[in-house]
């Protein structure tokens, strides 16, 4: 052996600081799954505060206005409806997220669901007991099939789902917009909208609440259903396995291609049902652009990301984005802070979550080189 016989004694591997007991406890604490979402929210709130200060305003007043506006007892009915829509779109994002796929086409699926519901409600003249369920099913079928297209595109043609959903979405939006403006529009109306649906085609209300209706109960039921599927069924288990390690899934016999079709169809169907519920609720019309302007899709996506796709966490993370969305408007009124700030906060949350992915891949980068 031609290697030097002696090595300097300080070449012995030193215990890294990571092995110190305090560092280990801190390490475990830092690795808790709740830390990152919570950290993202805190960072977003701090950055938002800096922006408010930079604009010469008082962040405490602004945030107080956000909270009090969102939780104002008089508007809780409205706040709940926003929460349910965000939950619905979060669910649409979470289903594929469970298997590691991103559905960025929620907007297209949402408007297609709205379109299907408007056609059933406005054209079919079904009796009250049938009209709403048929509209919801039609919305789920149309938007679900549209969402499902992305799965074979990924397995047969290697087009990532994240890309195809994003690119297919504007096609659906443009189609619906065209139909509302030129084919289904109310004659003589200055706004591009369908006629108001007949009473029997409107979403069933609950008591005399003006925003909260049976549609929102449907969304809550869908969330419970997904929670059950995710934790208690073979399909849900396969989704999670593929999300954790795709090769492990295929080796274990999971038919990943079929699973992707199912997940994308379910995702699109949920988005479509949300669209249908919005259209069937007050003002009971399909209005061009009205499904997209509240930004439920991306608030939902952010809530799903923040929850890591876990069905049990989505209702909680959706609260955050509901507060931002509803409270943002009242912040503008009472604290004179533009509501766009709530969009900024949503953006910051997403960036912080994305940073985590980057940092994790950097960390494992050394491992990849091994």
């Amino acid at each position, binding site marked *: *052996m*031609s*290697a*030097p016989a002696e*090595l300097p004694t300080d*070449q*012995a*591997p*030193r215990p890294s600081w990571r092995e110190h007991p305090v560092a280990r406890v801190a390490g475990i604490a830092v690795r808790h799954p709740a830390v990152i979402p919570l950290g993202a929210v805190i960072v977003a709130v701090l950055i938002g505060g800096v922006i408010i200060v930079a604009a010469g305003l008082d962040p405490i007043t602004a945030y107080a206005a956000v909270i009090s506006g969102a939780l104002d007892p008089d508007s809780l009915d409205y706040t709940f409806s926003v929460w349910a829509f965000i939950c619905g779109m979060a669910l649409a994002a979470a289903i594929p997220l469970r298997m590691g796929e991103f559905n960025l086409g929620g907007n297209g699926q949402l408007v297609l669901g709205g379109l299907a519901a408007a056609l059933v409600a406005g054209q079919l003249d079904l009796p009250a007991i049938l009209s709403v369920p048929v509209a919801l099913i039609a919305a789920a079928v149309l938007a679900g099939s549209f969402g499902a297209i992305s799965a074979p595109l990924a397995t047969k043609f290697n087009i990532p789902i994240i890309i195809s959903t994003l690119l297919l979405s504007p096609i659906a939006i443009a189609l619906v917009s065209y139909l509302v403006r030129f084919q289904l529009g109310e004659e003589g109306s200055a706004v591009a909208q369908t006629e108001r649906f007949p009473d029997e085609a409107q979403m069933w209300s609950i008591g005399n609440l003006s925003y909260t209706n049976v549609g929102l109960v449907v969304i809550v039921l869908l969330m419970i259903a997904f929670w059950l599927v995710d*934790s*208690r*069924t*073979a*399909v*849900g*288990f*396969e989704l*999670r*396995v593929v999300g*954790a*390690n795709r*090769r*492990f*899934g*295929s*080796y*274990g*016999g*999971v*038919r990943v291609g079929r699973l992707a079709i199912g997940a994308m169809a379910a995702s699109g169907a949920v988005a479509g049902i949300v669209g249908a519920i919005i259209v069937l609720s007050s003002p009971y019309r399909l209005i061009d652009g009205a499904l997209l302007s509240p930004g439920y899709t991306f608030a939902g996506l952010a809530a799903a990301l923040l929850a890591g796709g876990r069905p049990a966490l989505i209702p909680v993370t959706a609260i955050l984005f509901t507060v931002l969305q509803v409270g943002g408007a009242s912040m503008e009124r009472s604290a004179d802070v533009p509501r766009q700030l709530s969009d900024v906060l949503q953006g910051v949350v997403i960036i912080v979550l994305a940073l985590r992915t980057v940092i994790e891949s950097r960390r494992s980068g*050394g*491992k990849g*080189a*091994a």
Partner: protein
Amino acid sequence: MTNALPAGAADVELVGISKRFNAVVANDGVDLVLRSGTVHAVMGENGAGKSTLMSILFGLVSAESGQILVGGKPVTFSSPLDAIAAGLGMVHQHFRLFDSMTVAANVVYGAEPRRFGLIDTRAAEARVRELGARYGLEINPRAIVASLSVGERQRVEILKALHRDATILILDEPTAVLTPGEVTSLFTVIRRAADTGTTVVLVTHKINEVLSVSDEVTVLRDGRVTGRFATSEATSADLVQAMTGREVLSVSNPGTGSAGDTVLTVDAIDVIEDRTARVKNVSFTVRAGEIVGIAGVSGNGQHEVVEAILGTRSVDAGSVELLGADVTALTVRDRRARGVAVIPEDRRGEGTAITMSIAENLTLGHHRSAPVGASRGIRKGWISLRASRQRARQLIGDYDVRTSGEQQSVGSLSGGNAQKVVIARELSHGAPLLIAEQPTQGVDVGAIESIHGRLLDYRADGGAVLLVSHEITELLALADRILVMLSGEIVAEFSRADATTAKIGAAMAGASAATDTTTGASA
């Protein structure tokens, strides 16, 4: 097994390099001496630590301890740029080229000749021609990389390093993607470079390449140096032994009992990937109550054969029959349902989901049948979490998995315990065919014994076992028959009675098993 090398000027020296990735020791006190103007082969099987060592030398990864000396002076490389500045160049296994740009643009990238502040394309092209002529790497500098063959792209990579005046050229598994003709011309280039004073480091696990082109060899195994040779004094048997090692095994196949019906028939399968045939015309059978071993240095097509049997990879020709039925067209799920269980080679990448719990890892594949799931009736498609946990606790006890509980993540287990989870899951299928691929890789001695015992029990209970291993001693202890794979083909078959380490080693290294082994191993 460690021979002294002749003294000479050391151009680059690595001294006592150690590196761990979490619990995995990739390099453990590795010393490597590279002398100017020589071709130095760094050998070892997958996971032996070759790539980590080269990444450390090239500044991609930092060592935990140890030193790099260039020309006798200690250096610290915090990035590949430092390494390049010190005269190193590396050709990675996966090329790092801009496909849509020309050869010349790729070669000079990062160190472009400039004229009036702009890239001087003509000078770049002249440089490519000049380097090409000097090293025998002729290539059209204006060709677009996307239009080049794999061999030509590799030339571009080598030219890239030479353009930066690399005097130490690291080639990581350079022949993996080449045709035999391209390999020959690459070796000519390597020799020419060495003769002009360049130090070439050839990272490989192919014995014949080492013997035909290198001057010196350092063999790694499990992160340690297990052999140093001057190539002229080394035999293929020496290299095989240093790469695969040998351990004293206490359990062995009694050789009793007779094999029953044929369970697996592999008939003339071919697997082609990246225009290279990974598996060529492989045929064999495995019968009930029999352990058939496949020997071979890793990367000779054994893994592809396993994938073709399980169905995670489709075959380009031939067929796979299970219990008399052709399953070539079936999915993994259907094949598993008919009775294949696999302990895969890549435990973290394929055999487990490290972020999921032990219970969940044990459940995959069992989630549609009792007791966790149900294959028919009202509970079909549902999973009982309680049954899943209960079954996990049972298996943890049976297979002696050392863990704090069934909810612990598999990623936090030691290699041996994670392997026990995989084995528990696969053995509990009770499948007629069990494929065990490197079942004791990265597992401590105690666990090795228990795993070997399990495989023998499987055989005794009438199971058919296909055992893929690089460990000759493991195969000798367990297998009833041993097939040897080399370059995608079965090159030899031995019965239990005939098999010896020397014969198998010679066949693994490419010597004809039927003829005198001393003639073998020249490429």
